[in-house]
């Protein structure tokens, strides 16, 4: 037997037999006392014993009926093999005694034997009733349930007909026998359909069950034919009534129907187990083929639910994905998404997906689902859940639903559990694939952003009031916050700007784009470099920048008259190369844009005017250039840049050539591949003709 949790132990199953045996022994004892001392006992005592005898037996029979009903409500398969072992030899012994009349003995011994036989039979009938109730219960809402109930009523109706036939018109109602036989056949077929739990037993156990069922059926027939004529039987009132009203005939039919159907289902389930295993294998193979053909996610999800339905004979299935504490129904089969959502699985399990398979045999009786059971009754009465987990990662869960109660047994759990790993691996692969695709898409978007940002920078700068200008900018990531540009101000001053937005990446890039827009809008309105920078600050101070964002900027203006105006707002100071080759740091005081209000900014940020005749070259750069070498080596620093410029500068080279020489030096020193920060450099070179 496969491992199965069963509260229905053999002791529990045997309890009706124990109760009846005790009742029969008590009955025999009381009857013997009454018969033996019939002339001695006072009438009232004899009467009391008789009442007590009948009451005890009646109470015990009621107890048996109650036990049977309780067992039939069990959610798991009964431990039928153990039960069969208990009753097997009792039944065989009873058949032997009844089949060979020569075994008969007279007197009280035979009374005891007969009582034991009837006890075994009633225990067997309890078992038959248990199986019958369990099966009828599984048909509760289906059309078959109506058929079963109708058959039950018809069987009851035939009892008075048979009594009539027996006592009023013997031989006139033979059609009733034929009809009852037909009803038994129908019962056998209907009952045999719902024996999925038999798949939980091994082949040897199943054949044990068949063997016992046949014994009980034979015993039933023998008892029905022999005990009618038995006059020696010292019967209790209840049993006399049982035999007298032909209920025993009904019992024989019941036993025949039940045990024959169990035997039939057992034989069928042997074959169906093999077929089921083959189907499981085929389903997993088919699923793997779908996955290997690079199915789209939805195709994968749809295939999963379709196969889940086929594997478990469910009426519908739902696939739920679990991500970031969210449950999302991604596919359904046999019901629409609204109906799947109405099951309220998330609420039923308190938002936590179960770690282990869960079978809910009957929604109306489940503590988590009884509230919604009525509203979903038409399509969901039982369900089964299998988690889709790989290690500690939960990808989701697969839910199969049936419109009848008790539709799922252990074998269904096993089937779906065998299928689940393939689904989990497919989902994991799908997730990896789509993460890679998403990463690639983001990379493409960032590269597009880089391309757009590069277009915000001037590609070629024309001579500005006679000066030769070259610029270069390289973000550390795909996009950055460095910016350089040139503008012609309202007074004709050619102004070169290098700026750096604090931070890196996309947010810095957006501010850089904003800054360009502000500069373009303001430039024609400004009458000087100082005016330009102050106006830029005023705009930024008006809520453009977040509190933690600031912009450093250096602006160099070449007035039409030739003077050079420098404003530095917290930016690394530019370098100036004098006509005699000396490299100087040009560092007017200043504070970054966006740090203080405009009045204070105007006070702190000074304008420096340079002598035109003394300078041949101006080099503007961002702090990325200062920090080349970090974090693994010493940074270049301002002195390092000064040394490089000193080394490569030549009066007769162009701005572009000087830029190339400086970058070649940097590449030789630090390598060209990885920059720590965004880097920008602009070189302004006075034309040699004006030296």
């Amino acid at each position, binding site marked *: 037997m496969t491992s199965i949790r069963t509260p229905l132990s053999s002791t529990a199953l045997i309890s009706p037999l124990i109760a009846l045996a005790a009742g029969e022994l008590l009955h025999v004892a009381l009857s013997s006392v009454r018969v033996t001392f019939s002339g001695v006992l006072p009438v009232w005592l004899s009467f009391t014993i008789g009442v007590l005898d009948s009451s005890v037996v009646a109470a015990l029979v009621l107890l048996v009926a109650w036990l049977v009903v309780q067992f039939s409500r069990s959610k798991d398969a009964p431990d039928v093999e153990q039960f069969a072992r208990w009753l097997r030899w009792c039944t065989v012994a009873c058949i032997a005694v009844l089949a060979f009349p020569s075994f008969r003995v007279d007197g009280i011994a035979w009374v005891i034997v007969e009582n034991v036989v009837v006890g075994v039979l009633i225990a067997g009938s309890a078992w038959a009733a248990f199986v019958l109730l369990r099966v009828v219960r599984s048909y509760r809402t289906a059309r078959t349930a109506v058929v079963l109930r109708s058959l039950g009523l018809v069987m009851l109706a035939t009892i008075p007909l048979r009594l009539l036939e027996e006592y009023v018109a013997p031989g006139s109602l033979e059609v009733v026998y034929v009809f009852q036989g037909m009803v038994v056949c129908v019962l056998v077929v209907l009952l045999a359909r719902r024996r999925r739990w038999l798949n939980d037993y091994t082949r040897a156990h199943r054949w044990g069950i068949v063997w016992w069922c046949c014994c009980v059926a034979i015993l039933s027939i023998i008892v029905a034919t022999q005990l009618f004529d038995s006059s020696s039987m010292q019967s209790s009132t209840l049993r006399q009534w049982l035999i007298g009203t032909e209920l025993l005939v009904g019992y024989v039919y019941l036993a025949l129907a039940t045990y024959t159907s169990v035997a039939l289902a057992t034989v069928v389930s042997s074959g169906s187990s093999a077929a089921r295993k083959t189907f499981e294998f085929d389903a997993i193979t088919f699923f793997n083929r779908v996955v290997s053909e690079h199915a789209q996610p939805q195709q994968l999800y749809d295939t999963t639910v379709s196969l889940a339905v086929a594997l478990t004979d469910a009426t519908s299935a739902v696939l739920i994905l679990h991500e970031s504490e969210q449950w999302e129904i991604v596919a359904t089969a046999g019901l629409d998404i609204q109906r799947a959502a109405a099951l309220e699985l998330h609420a039923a399990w308190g938002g936590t997906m179960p770690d282990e398979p869960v079978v809910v045999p009957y929604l109306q009786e489940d503590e988590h689902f009884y509230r919604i059971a009525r509203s979903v009754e038409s399509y969901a009465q039982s369900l089964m859940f299998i988690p889709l987990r790989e290690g500690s990662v939960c990808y989701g869960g697969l839910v199969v639903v049936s419109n009848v109660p008790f539709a799922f047994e252990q074998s269904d759990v096993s089937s779906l559990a065998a299928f689940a790993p393939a689904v989990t691996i497919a989902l994991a692969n799908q997730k990896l694939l789509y993460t890679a695709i998403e990463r690639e898409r983001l990379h493409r978007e960032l590269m597009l952003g880089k391309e757009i940002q590069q277009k915000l920078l001037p590609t070629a700068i024309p001579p500005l009031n006679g000066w030769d200008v070259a610029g270069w900018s390289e973000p550390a990531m795909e996009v950055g916050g460095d910016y350089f540009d040139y503008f012609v101000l309202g007074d004709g001053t050619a102004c070169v700007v290098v700026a750096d937005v604090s*931070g890196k*990446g996309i947010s810095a890039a957006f501010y850089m784009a904003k800054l360009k827009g502000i500069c373009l809008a303001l430039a024609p309105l400004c009458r000087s470099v100082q005016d330009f920078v102050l106006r830029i600050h005023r705009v930024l101070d008006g809520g453009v920048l977040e*509190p*933690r964002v*600031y912009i*450093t900027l250096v602006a160099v203006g070449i007035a039409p008259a030739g003077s050079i105006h420098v404003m530095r707002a917290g930016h690394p100071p530019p370098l100036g190369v004098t006509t005699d080759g000396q490299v100087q740091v040009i560092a007017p005081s200043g*504070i970054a844009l966006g*740090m*203080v209000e405009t009045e204070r900014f105007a006070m702190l940020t000074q304008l420096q005017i340079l002598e035109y005749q003394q300078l041949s070259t101006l080099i503007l750069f961002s*702090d990325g250039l200062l920090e080349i070498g970090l974090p693994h080596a010493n940074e270049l620093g301002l002195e390092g840049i000064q040394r490089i410029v000193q080394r490569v500068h030549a009066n007769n080279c162009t701005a572009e050539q000087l830029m190339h020489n400086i970058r070649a030096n940097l590449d030789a020193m630090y390598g060209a591949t990885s920059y720590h920060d965004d880097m920008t450099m602009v070189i302004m070179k006075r034309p040699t003709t004006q030296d």
Partner: protein
Amino acid sequence: MQNEFSAQVKTAHDGRVTVVELDGYLDAYTAPEFDTLLEQLFTSGQVRVVVDCGSLEYISSAGLGVFMGHIEQFRSSGGDIVLCALSPRISAIVEMLGFPHIFRIFPERSVALAVFDRQGTTH
């Protein structure tokens, strides 16, 4: 590339002043950690803060932006953020930006702590 960074929170002056010791690299990757720390200090009412940069090896514009993002908040609550023990490199960076116009910066922690003794939070 993720660089090492840590921020140790200590108290001084019987808990009236909070000292934050920064260590390592305060850059775009580690700035959010420091930002969260300052936010927590502000939320818990610890608005008199001395940031000791003695072990700070590097600070980027994103790191400096964290100071900018919180200074007004702390001052409007009667506190301040005071910097101390800056290395020459970091000192050069903050001076270039114009930080000394906004923040009080002291060479030693004891001097920075004394600021809160002397004049409370007046800036």
